[in-house]
């Protein structure tokens, strides 16, 4: 017994040069690793995230790893852009949220209402990899994931090649149109303006007032105007309609990837970019921790995993995607340009949205 213990002790403490260096390095590094994020120990933030696959990934993968690394607590609430803005407004006097995820259209609104703070770039080194087009309002928000916004179809039929074909009688009662109440539904009004004026989306978005007679002509082809993308995708996959949209690839491709007969349709006029963004709530608790979380969201590792799980494009450079994910996302920025991924002028659209909605409702409720 004594001999065994002695041998064991002798082995445990036998100093070789390699062991000595390793032990010394560990001894030096351990306090650094332990104290690196000690400022965040025991802190808590509340963040508003999206639902769907992105929300599931963030809740189950990103947050647990972040909490472990920082010794903190992150409480995530799943929601949508407009309710998230309303929550920020309602809690403005005593902010509850630190970070909020919203669509790109909401960033100018949030900034205009003084709901958000400029991002602390010095605390977010991963912003260095951000494609400039996904830096919003000069550093008030970054993109997090980009979906392709276009029409989608049941693959049993022939795909159209232009938005202009949607007025063809062969689509009679065969199209499910996304409501303009949804952000992605507004894209169709811009696409119609492109058809009416013959101009690209970038110019046509300022001439939507000219589309109403043309939009009324589409009415016989519209089966219904929907508000729930997941339900519409489900119905089109079952062949209850020929085409749907405009909607985001993040709702459609998960079905495609499961083998459902549904796919996005890339039309010659181009596609729209649906950009999910992150903002830092002005005056929200523990801003440093919020910035650290936002920085983590922009890391290449998180962006790779998020893109492959939720099939959205990363807004940062240098992400190596799997071949499977590469089929479904527009990445890198060169590929986004090839697809003519258009990002609308939300400041203009937000001002016009109520009037556009009223005009479109008048046509489809008549």
């Amino acid at each position, binding site marked *: 017994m004594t001999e065994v213990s002695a041998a064991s002790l002798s082995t445990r403490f036998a100093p070789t040069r390699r062991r000595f260096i390793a032990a010394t390095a560990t001894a030096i590094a351990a306090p650094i690793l332990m104290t690196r994020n000690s400022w965040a120990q025991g802190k808590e933030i509340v963040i508003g995230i999206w639902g769907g696959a992105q929300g599931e990934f963030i809740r189950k993968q990103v947050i647990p790893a972040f909490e472990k690394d920082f010794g903190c607590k992150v*409480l995530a609430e799943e929601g949508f852009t407009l309710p998230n803005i309303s929550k920020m407004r*309602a809690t403005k006097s005593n902010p509850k949220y630190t970070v909020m995820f919203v669509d790109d259209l909401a960033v100018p609104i949030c900034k205009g209402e003084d709901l958000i703070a400029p991002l602390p770039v010095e605390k977010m080194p991963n912003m260095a990899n951000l494609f400039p087009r996904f830096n919003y309002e000069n550093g008030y928000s970054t993109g997090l994931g980009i979906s392709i916004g276009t029409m989608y179809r049941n693959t049993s039929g022939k795909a159209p090649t232009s938005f202009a074909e949607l007025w063809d009688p062969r689509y009679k009662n065969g199209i499910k149109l996304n409501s303009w109440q949804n952000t992605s539904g507004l894209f169709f009004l811009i696409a119609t303006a492109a058809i009416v004026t013959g101009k690209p989306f970038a110019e046509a978005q300022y001439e939507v007032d000219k589309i109403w007679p043309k939009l009324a002509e589409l009415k016989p082809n519209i089966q219904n105007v929907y508000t729930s993308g997941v339900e519409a995708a*489900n119905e089109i996959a079952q062949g209850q309609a020929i085409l749907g949209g405009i909607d985001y690839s993040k709702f459609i491709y998960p079905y495609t990837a499961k083998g*459902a007969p549904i796919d996005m349709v890339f039309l010659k006029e181009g596609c729209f970019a649906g950009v999910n963004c992150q903002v830092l709530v002005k005056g929200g608790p523990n801003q440093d921790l919020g910035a650290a979380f936002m920085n983590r969201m922009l890391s290449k590792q998180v962006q790779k995993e998020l893109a492959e799980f939720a099939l959205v494009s990363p807004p940062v450079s240098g992400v190596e995607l799997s071949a499977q994910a590469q089929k479904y996302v527009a990445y890198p920025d060169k590929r986004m340009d090839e697809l003519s991924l258009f990002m609308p002028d939300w400041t203009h659209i937000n001002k016009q949205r109520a009037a556009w909605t009223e005009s479109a409702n008048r046509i489809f409720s008549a």
Partner: protein
Amino acid sequence: MNPENPRIPIALALCCALLSAAILAPMLIPIAVSISDSMFVSFPPRGFTLNWYAQVLADAEFQTTFLFSFKLAVLVTALTVLLGVPCAIGLTRFRFPGRSLVFALILSPIVFPVLVTGVALLQFASRLGSNDSFLQILAGHTVICLPYLVRTVSGALLLVVPSTEDAARTLGAGQFTTFRRVTLPQIRGGILAGCVFAFITSFDDYAMAMWLADARNFTLPLQIHVFIERSFDPSVAAISALMVAFSLALLLVVERALGLKMQRIVAG
């Protein structure tokens, strides 16, 4: 014709049957969809499987949110009774200035959209400096459940025979004893009906919880919405079917355990 059991006219019976079918049919659809052996929500269902139920019942998020919603609904119901019964008695038995206004205020959550009430409560709590989501949601649900209980108990109180209370008082019973032994048994149906409405309203609420819930206090209807967003498959229908079954079971338990006939509960 037997005056005790009058025969229902055929036209009325037909009308009732049609009305019942219109009310019940939407509830039957999720039940049918939930047994579909397909990755899509399809009606009529394709094939037969109970796998969606197995998947849902084993889901940790479903279990956690179901338990939270259940506990919340129990607490809300208890709080509603504690506040609602005295309130109904006050409004029914006493005449005071502003009585109609108080009654209208208590019933107002039924008139206003719950979404509006929810965001107003969130703003109010924020101005008070409160970030306690549980207290907020408890208060919010109590506000929207209170009108149902006050209505049913007020109705029951109006049907109480005043002479029975007078007799008890004449025979020497105190105010509390008279209430406990004479009034309470007569309004028990109204209280129970209010409890059932309050429980189900709290358990099913989405609009209020959307504003006031947080990650620690997340209700089942919110979780169902999360499931729909993640993947619109028949598991969502299975959850809906389970909620319908749970509500029906609750009604049956109340009826059986307390020996009440359903029509008495409804009539108060």
